[in-house]
């Protein structure tokens, strides 16, 4: 009975031991300190791979041009050269398998994202290889309100139909 004073301490240490045992079974083996040290790099290494394997949905024009060379050439020669197909056609994901058909957005609101006149919207557009142009902007309330832009305008060559 000599050391009864330390009994609560043994119970406490026993609990701590249990946590360590639980840790051994539950914590993934690749959990540890990474390149950024304990402060910024205390993590499960395998998670990096999980993020790398995340599904890509926007495959960019590079992907589209193989099957749609004509459209792609057309738009490349137009003032819309820098506009990605997927901006209006939606993410291609695994097209043509899944989805088999892309959902084209022909809304007036989509065009207005760039072409609505705002007093503070930069009007100079210098991204084309052919040199700087003025960004076409319209007052949405005055320029044929209610009609979809694609009624008169052709998007792929950025001109009238």
């Amino acid at each position, binding site marked *: 009975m000599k050391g009864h004073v330390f009994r609560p301490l043994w119970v406490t240490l026993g609990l701590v031991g249990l946590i360590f045992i639980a840790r051994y079974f539950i914590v993934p083996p690749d959990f540890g300190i990474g390149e950024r040290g304990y402060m910024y790099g205390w993590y499960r290494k395998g998670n990096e791979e999980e993020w790398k394997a995340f599904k890509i949905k926007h495959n960019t024009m590079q992907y589209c041009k193989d099957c749609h060379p004509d459209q792609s050439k057309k738009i490349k020669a137009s003032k819309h050269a820098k506009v990605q197909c997927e901006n209006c056609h939606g*993410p291609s994901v695994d097209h043509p398998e899944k989805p088999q058909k892309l959902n084209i957005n022909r809304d007036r609101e989509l065009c207005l994202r760039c072409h609505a006149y705002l007093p503070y919207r930069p009007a100079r557009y210098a991204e084309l290889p052919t040199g700087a142009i003025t960004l076409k902007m319209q007052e949405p309330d005055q320029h044929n309100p209610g009609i979809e832009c694609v009624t008169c305008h052709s998007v792929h060559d950025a001109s009238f139909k």
Partner: protein
Amino acid sequence: MNQSRREFLKTGFKTILATGFSIGVFETLRPEVLAALKKEEGLRWAFVVDTTKCIGCGMCVKACKLENEIPYDVNVTRTWVERYVMTKDGRIYADSPKGARDGFIKNDPMGVTVKKEDIDKGFFVPKLCNQCENPPCVQVCPVGATYQTADGIVLVDRTWCIGCGYCIMACPYGVRFFHPVYRVAEKCNFCYHRIKKDMKPACVDACSFGARLIGNIRDPWDSVSRIIKTERTAVLKEEFGTKPHVFYLGLDSIVR
């Protein structure tokens, strides 16, 4: 006797050499050392946002939400675009309705129509995670569910996050939120799955105006690194000591 002594020395020497060599090999193969070698290789992602080129179409936000499976109609987003309008009477109008998911198609900052002649200046500022060199969000995570990779990207481990929200509180930029589906902390990661496959982040690809650029700040010949080195760039909320790695061109003092 002499022979055996010589033999002994020889074997001893061999043993020492072999042991030393193998220790040396193991030493070099140690993960920390390998990591240090890799570091010298030098990859540290950095972003440049040219606010003078942004026209506020919000295509980046749309692309980001679709690419990264952020429920389209929920009012949270990994990247967003802010609109700032300063009028002649000194008033500042700033807003970002739905994070500019649908762009800015009306002249209605904060729901007010401002006349062209009343405006002193106005512009758009895209925001995203700054992938800070000293990320306070990572520092405060109690369980090690968020971390920074060797190339500087801050990621969230969805299987380990307990959802306490401390990281959301600690970010001075309001970049983090709870994912509506997975219910864990969520943030922009420069589209880690894309940049690791030699693609550009979805927002960079979606931008037709060249307002968003990504590159390697450690490569002196990289175009983004050239801009950061040679042009007058600024970062957001520098006073927090977070060392952000999104560099802004044409940043104004009224930007929050």
